[in-house]
């Protein structure tokens, strides 16, 4: 096995190698640290590399393993976290210049849980400033520069978990932790060709994470396989006295021998032809082991407006101090410099009405998806957007035409998983999305793991370059 093979192995494969003593955690950590140094800036993927902490944790992991004390399946496996999550020993910048020197002297709960599981923290990974809360419209929306796809660095790695997506895709970490309020795990997973899992709201504690929209913020794994995503989720899940929304709830499992999945109606409308082709090919694979129902329709919205009204109120409150300080002008994206004032000017009555409609919409959505183990659709209608062009100008004929489950799923707190399902225009990855019932992550990862066993798209590797 080459060093390259090792770097691109999924976390469970690394775990097996550690168990066999074919490699040590210190060796793995040094490998990933060197790759983060070599490629991290090239892909706009990293904010802070934590050499000392990583090697300290790796040495401790090796020592414990030698003594027969293996804490979990992730023991000794190196990983990175999106830089909105507190970790002692490094700044936590939220991707934004006004916070570039912000330091917390504690680990967020997810970091703490991973440490207790024996995993090794390598780096704080790049992100879109304020997780995209102020309405950016191009890739250059982080004080560390645009996130770039390892498949072609002229294209965006997606957001707002741009660093976790790129670093995982490029084999710079064993796995990573991202966050999603409305698309921030699913999008980079699709654009970077990796497996990203947005957990059910309340599955994972957000303690120590930047708040953007308390009622929709989730932390979740971005990995090189669906099986990894489930393994990481099981380590970081669970209740936490520091986050009242975090709960211990059993994982729902598939109810029949053949999973029952539904295909979203019109889910390939205004979608790039290559993505339609990949999606249809994915359906053929899924039909070989699932019962597939077509033309599934979600209950009528307006999901986007409800999400927007609630989001505006929560975001303005979360960043009131920044907005009122006038320091928005220090943000990287010109849209973000005024976006805070736009959410600040929203109406309280719209916020409350949004919460009232949310109750209705969620009830209808829970009922509609109950018969199915997963709803499937192309994660996005396009491949990654080019860097340097406003997003809304990148693929104008493909914009906004498809039925999508981002806002409905996030409003309802439902889990979703994106896995790679081929390459499209410009040799960039496309994604296949699965949305499930509340607390049904294991259903999604089980179906996706079987899909990955039959397709191998998750094993595709980008050809990396290093640019100083």
């Amino acid at each position, binding site marked *: 096995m080459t060093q390259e093979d090792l770097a691109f192995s999924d976390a469970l494969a690394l775990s097996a190698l550690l168990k066999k003593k074919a490699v040590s955690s210190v060796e793995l950590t040094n490998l990933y640290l060197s790759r983060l140094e070599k490629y991290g800036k090239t892909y706009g993927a990293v904010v802070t590399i934590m050499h000392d902490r990583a090697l300290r944790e790796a040495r401790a992991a090796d020592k414990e393993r030698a003594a027969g004390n293996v804490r979990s399946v992730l023991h000794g496996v190196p990983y990175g976290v999106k830089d909105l999550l507190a970790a002692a020993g490094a700044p936590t910048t939220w991707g934004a210049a006004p916070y570039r020197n912000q330091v917390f002297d504690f680990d967020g709960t997810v970091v703490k849980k991973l440490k207790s599981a024996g995993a090794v923290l390598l780096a704080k990974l790049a992100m*879109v400033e304020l*997780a*995209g*809360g102020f*309405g*950016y*419209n*191009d890739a250059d929306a982080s004080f560390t520069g645009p996130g770039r796809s390892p498949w072609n660095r002229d294209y965006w790695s997606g*957001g707002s978990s741009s660093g976790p997506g790129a670093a995982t895709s490029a084999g710079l970490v064993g796995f990573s932790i991202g966050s*999603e*309020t*409305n*698309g*921030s795990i699913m*999008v980079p997973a699709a654009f970077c060709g990796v497996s990203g899992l947005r957990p059910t709201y309340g599955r994972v504690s957000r303690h120590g994470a930047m708040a953007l*929209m308390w*009622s929709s913020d989730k932390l979740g794994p971005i990995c090189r396989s669906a099986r990894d995503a489930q393994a990481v989720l099981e380590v970081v899940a669970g209740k936490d006295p520091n986050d009242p929304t975090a709960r211990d709830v059993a994982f729902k499992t598939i109810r029949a021998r053949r999973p029952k999945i539904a295909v979203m109606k019109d889910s390939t409308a205004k979608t790039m032809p290559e993505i339609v082709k990949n999606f249809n090919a994915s359906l053929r694979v899924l039909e070989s082991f699932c019962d597939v129902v077509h033309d599934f329709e979600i209950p009528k*919205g*307006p*999901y*986007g*407006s*409800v*999400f*927007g*009204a609630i*989001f*505006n109120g929560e*975001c303005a409150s979360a960043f009131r101090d920044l907005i*009122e*300080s*006038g320091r*928005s*002008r220090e943000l990287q994206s010109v849209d973000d410099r*005024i976006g805070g*004032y*736009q*959410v*600040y*000017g*929203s109406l309280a*009555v*719209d916020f*409350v*009405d*949004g*919460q*009232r*409609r*949310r*109750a*209705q919409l*969620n009830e209808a959505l829970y009922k509609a998806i109950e018969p199915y183990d997963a709803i499937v659709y192309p994660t996005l209608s396009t491949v990654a*957007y080019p860097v340097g062009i406003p*997003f*809304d100008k990148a693929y104008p004929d493909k*914009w*906004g035409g498809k039925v999508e489950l*981002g*806002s409905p799923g996030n409003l309802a707190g439902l889990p979703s998983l994106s896995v790679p399902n081929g390459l499209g225009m410009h040799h960039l990855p496309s994604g296949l999305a699965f949305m499930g019932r509340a607390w049904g992550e294991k259903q999604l990862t089980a179906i996706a793991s079987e899909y990955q066993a039959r397709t191998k798209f998750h094993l595709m590797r980008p050809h990396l370059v290093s640019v100083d």
Partner: protein
Amino acid sequence: MSTRKSFLTAAASLPIAAAVPAAASTPAPTASPAMPTPKPTPKPPSDAAKGLAEIARAFDPNLTDKNIDDIAGGIDYNLSFGKRINPKGRALKNWDEPVTPFSVPE
């Protein structure tokens, strides 16, 4: 009438006094903080939005008139959410509770 909701449902058969203005017929907006969103076609901002946007000058005196107009445009866009959430006042009834009801601990 065992619940407040059932009581209020019955009460709702009475006509309401005030007419509710129709929702604007602009394209349905989508909101996605993590993902870029399609921006509305630029048009002159409303006076109400301009008034709200002027508040921003108190926080950043360096904002230009163009900045204020852009902020006002975004506020108009955000205000359109409210009209779509409850079009013609038909989607929400008086008793429809928010998704996060307040409760007193035992």
